[in-house]
C-alpha cells in the first residue's frame, strides 16, 4: 500500500517541485518579469484574466475536439482500408507520408484562403495534424495477425470479412486506443497553431495579443491553460484505453 500511495502522490509532488524551483530561480537570480515571470505572478495573471482565459480556452477546446473527432472517424476508416488491401496500402501510404511531412503551419494560409479565419481553419488544422497516427496504428494492428491463425480460420472457410471481424479489428483496438493519446495532443497543437496565425479567438490568439501588449505573465498563463487542458484530454484518452482494452495491458513492467 505504501508504494501505491507514493505513486499516486508522485505526479503532484513533481509538479509542485517544478513550480518551487521556478519561483526560487526567478528570485535568486533576480530574473526580470518581462523575461521570465515567476509562477506566483503567473497564477495572479490567471486569476486576474480568468474570464478571458476561460472563454478562449473553451474555444480552443471545441475546435480541438471537433477536429479530433473528424480525425478519429477518417483515420479509423482509412486505417481499416489500408490494412484490408495491399493495393490500397501501396497506393495510399507514400501519399500519406508525404502529406504528414508537410508542416501544418504551412497549410494554414491555404485554409484561410478557402474558409476565412477563425473556427474552421482551426478545426481543419487539428484534423490534418492528428489523423496520421490513427491510420498508421490501425493498419499496424491489422497487419500483425498471426499467419497460422489466419490458416486455421481460412481452412474453415472464413471470408476475409470474417477474419477482419473476429481477429483483425479486436487485435487492432489496443493500437487504435493507444494512438488516440497521441492524436488528441497533436490535435490540440494543430488548433493552437491555427489560432496564433489566423484567428481572433482562442488561447493561441490570446497569447499573441498578450505578447503584443508585453503582458508576459499572461502569456505564461496561456501556456499554463494549454498544459492543463492537454493533460486532462490525455488522461481521458488513457482512461478510455484502459477501459476498452484491459486484456492488452497485463504487463507488470515498470510497476515496481
Amino acid at each position, binding site marked *: 500500500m505504501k508504494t501505491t500511495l507514493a505513486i499516486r502522490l508522485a505526479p503532484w509532488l513533481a509538479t509542485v517541485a517544478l513550480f518551487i524551483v521556478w519561483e526560487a530561480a526567478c528570485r535568486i537570480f533576480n530574473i526580470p518579469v518581462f523575461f521570465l515571470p515567476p509562477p506566483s505572478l503567473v497564477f495572479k495573471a490567471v486569476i486576474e484574466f480568468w474570464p478571458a482565459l476561460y472563454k478562449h480556452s473553451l474555444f480552443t477546446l471545441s475546435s480541438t475536439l471537433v477536429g479530433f473527432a473528424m480525425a478519429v472517424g477518417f483515420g479509423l476508416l482509412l486505417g481499416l482500408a489500408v490494412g484490408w488491401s495491399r493495393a490500397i496500402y501501396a497506393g495510399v501510404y507514400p501519399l500519406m507520408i508525404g502529406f504528414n511531412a508537410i508542416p501544418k503551419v504551412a497549410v494554414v494560409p491555404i485554409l484561410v484562403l478557402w474558409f476565412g479565419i477563425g473556427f474552421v481553419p482551426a478545426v481543419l488544422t487539428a484534423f490534418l495534424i492528428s489523423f496520421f497516427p490513427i491510420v498508421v496504428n490501425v493498419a499496424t494492428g491489422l497487419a500483425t495477425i498471426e499467419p*497460422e491463425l489466419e*490458416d486455421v480460420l481460412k481452412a*474453415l*472457410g472464413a471470408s476475409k470479412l470474417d477474419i477482419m471481424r473476429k481477429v483483425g479489428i479486436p487485435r487492432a483496438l489496443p493500437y487504435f486506443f493507444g494512438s488516440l493519446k497521441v492524436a488528441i495532443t497533436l490535435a490540440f497543437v494543430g488548433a493552437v497553431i491555427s489560432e496564433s496565425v489566423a484567428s481572433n479567438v482562442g488561447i493561441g490568439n490570446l497569447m499573441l495579443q498578450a505578447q503584443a501588449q508585453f503582458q508576459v505573465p499572461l502569456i505564461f498563463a496561456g501556456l499554463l491553460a494549454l498544459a492543463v487542458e492537454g493533460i486532462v484530454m490525455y488522461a481521458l484518452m488513457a482512461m478510455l484505453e484502459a477501459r476498452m482494452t484491459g*486484456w492488452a495491458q497485463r504487463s507488470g513492467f515498470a510497476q515496481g
Partner: protein
Amino acid sequence: MLQPDSANGFVTLDGVSHVYGGTGGTLAVEGLSINVSRGEFAAVVGPSGCGKSTLMKLATGLQFPFKGAVRVAGEVVSKPVKIAGMAFQAPTLLPWRTTLENLLLPLEIVEPHRSRIRRHKAEYVERAENLLASVGLRGQGSKYPWELSGGMQQRTSLCRALIHEPDLLMLDEPFGALDAFTREELWCVIRDLHAARKITIVLVTHDLREAVFLADRIFVMSARPGRIVSERVVDIPRPRDLEVTFTPQFTGIVHELREHIVKARQ
C-alpha cells in the same frame, strides 16, 4: 488392421508438385505421393525445410498444387477443406477471449454451426466444456489464455481444432515448443483423442520418437524439394503406453527412421 489403399484413401496426394512465388520460384515439393486411410494416424517426418508445412496447406485446401492432384474424402481439393481441423506449434489463441470463447471461434465461422450458434449457445458451450474436460482442462474455460501454462494453451489449441468435429486433424509440430514432460503428456492426450473419436490424423513432426509412439504409418520426406523416400508401418499394438518407448522394438524403428533422415539430408 488398416492397409494403404490408393482407391479408397481418405487423404491422397498423387504426384504433387508445388511452387511458391509462381513459375520460376523454388520447388517446395516435387512428385509427392501420400495415401492416408480413413481413421488412420499418419506421421510425416523429414529434415527441416523439406516442405512439411506445404503438405499441410495442400491437404487443407489453403494452397493448390501446380501439378498432380490432392483428394480429401474422395473429392479433389479445390477450396478450403472444412472437414479439417488444424493446430500448430504456436497455440495462436485470441488474448481477448476466454478459453471457452476461443473454442467457440471455429463454430462462429463454419456452417451449419455458424447460423445456429446464437440460438443454441448453451448446447455449444456444453460441447466445448466436455471437450475441455476430455483433455484435462475441466473448469478452466473462464480463464484467459495468458492465465494458462504453455501445455494448457496447447491443449486448448487442440480443442479448438476439434470443436467442429472434423473428420481430419492436421497437426504441424504441435508439441515443438513444450518441455519434454509436458510433450509426453500431450502425446497421451492426442493418442486418447484418436482412439475415442476414430478421427484421421496427419501429424507433421521432426521428433521421431513422437512419430513412432503415435502413428500407424510414418512417411519420411526428402530434403527440398520434398517427396516421400520411405514409408514405415508401425506395428506396435495399441493401446500404447509410454513404457513402450523404452522397448527394443520401439528404438529399432526410431533408429531405422533416423538413418533415412540422415540419408535424406545429404
